[in-house]
């Protein structure tokens, strides 16, 4: 299994891992999340891209100091065994909840569009089976899946053609028409749509060409950012501000604008095809969680039991009779914790510089 074989990820893998993990459910509702800025949201993804570049730089710098360790080991090395383990445990929980959030979000979307009047227990179950199948192949298998995902799904951009035709480019103006309050609200709400690149902290040890890892991840990040930018730009052109605020999954309605003679509802094709994107990002998170459990508990690696347990926990979180409200809160909280993980390397870098002499790499 490739999980223990050392370096397995070539540059294409690195590019598309970063790219595919970032594009999950977030992009579907990105224009809605940014809607506090109204029409001025168009260029927000580019700003996010800059932020992502900065934080990714911190991450890769930190990783390059520990070329053979992932964040879990770094935590233990830098913060001491017990504090590190506690943090690792929290990170694992975060990843599990975060993946559950993505899946649950997507499944409810499926339920409201493609599988109306059906319970989603079975679809979730099948989805998770596939998830286990992919994750048990290790990070390389996920990476290869991500590469394919990109090429299988990228052509749905074409479906926004009709929305572009109908849209009004004058909506872009005036360019910077927002208040600082709206701006920070939009950052808070919207940034989690592009989370995902932080996982390089975990798969960095598997990268073959670690010196160029930053450049390759950046390519991936900016492909995603560009996709986000297209999404917001087309949404801004196509919708009124009221619609931007109210239409939850604006990408879906963008697809609705078009039709072929033989297929009338492209949104359904689009949303079901989206399962590839969801799979590629969730598998990466679950893989990281599994590695976390491996470093935390088991002595022998190569066991798949943690994976099964993680999947069962995810299933329980999604399908347990928690109130919808509790679930929403949980997922929202995990989004904010996601921001913490993005910032975390900066904190670790500070500790690293302070304790440089004590820590033996």
């Amino acid at each position, binding site marked *: 299994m490739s999980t223990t074989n050392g370096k397995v990820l070539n540059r294409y893998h690195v590019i598309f891992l970063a790219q595919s993990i970032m594009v999950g459910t977030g992009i579907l509702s990105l224009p809605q999340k940014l809607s506090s800025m*109204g029409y001025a949201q168009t260029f927000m993804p580019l700003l996010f891209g800059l932020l992502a570049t900065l934080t990714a730089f911190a991450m890769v710098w930190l990783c390059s100091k520990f070329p053979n360790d992932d964040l879990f080991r770094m935590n233990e090395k830098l913060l001491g065994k017990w504090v590190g383990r506690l943090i690792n445990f929290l990170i694992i929980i975060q990843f599990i909840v975060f993946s559950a959030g993505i899946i649950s979000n997507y499944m409810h979307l499926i339920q*409201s*569009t493609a599988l*109306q*009047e*059906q*319970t989603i227990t*079975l679809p979730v*179950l*099948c989805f998770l*089976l*596939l998830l*286990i*199948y992919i994750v*048990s*192949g290790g990070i390389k298998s996920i990476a290869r899946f991500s590469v394919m995902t990109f090429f299988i799904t990228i052509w749905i951009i074409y479906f926004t053609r009709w929305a572009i035709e109908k849209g*009004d480019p*004058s909506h872009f*103006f*005036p360019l910077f*028409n927002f208040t600082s309050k709206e701006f920070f609200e939009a950052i808070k709400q919207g940034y989690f749509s592009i989370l995902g690149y932080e996982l390089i902290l975990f798969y960095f040890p598997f990268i073959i060409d670690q010196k160029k890892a930053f450049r390759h991840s950046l390519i991936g990040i900016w492909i995603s950012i560009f996709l986000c930018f297209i999404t917001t730009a087309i949404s801004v052109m*196509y*919708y*009124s*501000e*009221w*619609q931007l605020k109210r239409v939850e999954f604006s990408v*879906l*309605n963008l697809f*609705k*604008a078009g*039709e072929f003679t033989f297929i*009338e*509802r492209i949104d359904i094709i689009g949303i079901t095809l989206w399962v590839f994107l969801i799979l590629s990002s969730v598998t990466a998170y679950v893989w990281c969680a599994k590695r976390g459990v491996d470093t935390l508990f088991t002595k022998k690696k190569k066991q*798949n039991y943690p994976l099964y347990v993680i999947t069962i926990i995810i299933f329980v979180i999604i399908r347990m009779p928690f109130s919808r409200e509790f679930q929403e809160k949980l997922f929202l909280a995990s989004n904010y914790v996601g921001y913490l993980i993005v910032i975390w390397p900066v904190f670790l870098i500070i500790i690293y510089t302070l304790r440089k002499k004590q820590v033996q790499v």
Partner: protein
Amino acid sequence: MRKKRLCIISFFVLVLLVGCSRKELKVPLEDVGMVDSMAFDYIDENQMKLTVAIPQYSPEAKKNTQIFSITTDLVSSGIVEIEKQSDKKIVFNQLRVVLVNEDFARKGDIRKIIQHLYRNAEVGNKVLIAVVKDNAEAILKADYPDKPSINFYLNNLLEPSINTAFNPNTNIHDFMYTITNPVFDTVLPFIEKRGEKLEVNGVAVFKGNRMHELIKPEEALVIQALSGRKNLAPLHLDLNAGHGEEKLMIDLIESTVKKVSNKNIESPKLTIFLKIKGTLSEYKGERESQLITTESISELEKDVNKQLEKNIGEFLERLNNMEVDPAGLSEEFRMYYYGEWTTEKTRDLIRKLDIKLHVETSIISTGTLK
């Protein structure tokens, strides 16, 4: 090895699960009644009459459309009532036409109804909305002996075609877009029943959420031209410019519009450059024999320009006095305004708006006969 085992297990689980899903399988296609057209009639503030038309495929049935009518206060409760009468499950995924009668458009809350449909993920984007004179129910229920079914008739009538290019073809997205966008006022096609035929004979202009005015097709064409539509309906023009009464028809090939604003919302000024290209398809009047040289044609073009500027100017003046902006002219000012744009600003601006028009017609041919 574990992976392979997993693969096999998942396959069998999948096979087994197909069995489980039987009981919650959805209604098969043949037992579904796909609503094609809906009509809303105004009764009073709380009540409306909801009529739905469902195409019927069974050759045994005498009529090819099932029509159900119900008085209700909410759309969805009306549907529940209709389902009680119907032998099929009512679904909206092939909804094509929504008709609203004039009373409803003027007094009722049409936005609420459309928003309800817009919210429903089942409903596609192809839903065309139209306002109907008098009674919408009657239109669905009437007999059209030479048409296969009311559903196709209505749908084809409202769909874009070059000769009815004044028709805004408002679909559900356009409706929601214009009604929620402060710089726009919604326009809907207006249908009237004449004998055994239906006719799109105007456009209903909204002010806010209510219908405000009915305008003629020629004027509606202006709205379409100003909002940037490329292909327009043939233009019929009456000239009286020193050559006696002239009538002419121009087949428009392409029109482009450019709007330049002075970016000042206190004393707004807007200059509109409208370029139209077309062929002179028919002409009746004094100059008929002269229209073979380029000079005479360019003279005609100038006359046409003047006449058009006059017509459009008058029409825009009328719209400005009504404080409605169906062509979205105020967008030219919003683009340069920092801060939140509101409907009140649009009304204010339109009232004060000073429009300058430059029409440039070019008749590129007069047909193949000299």
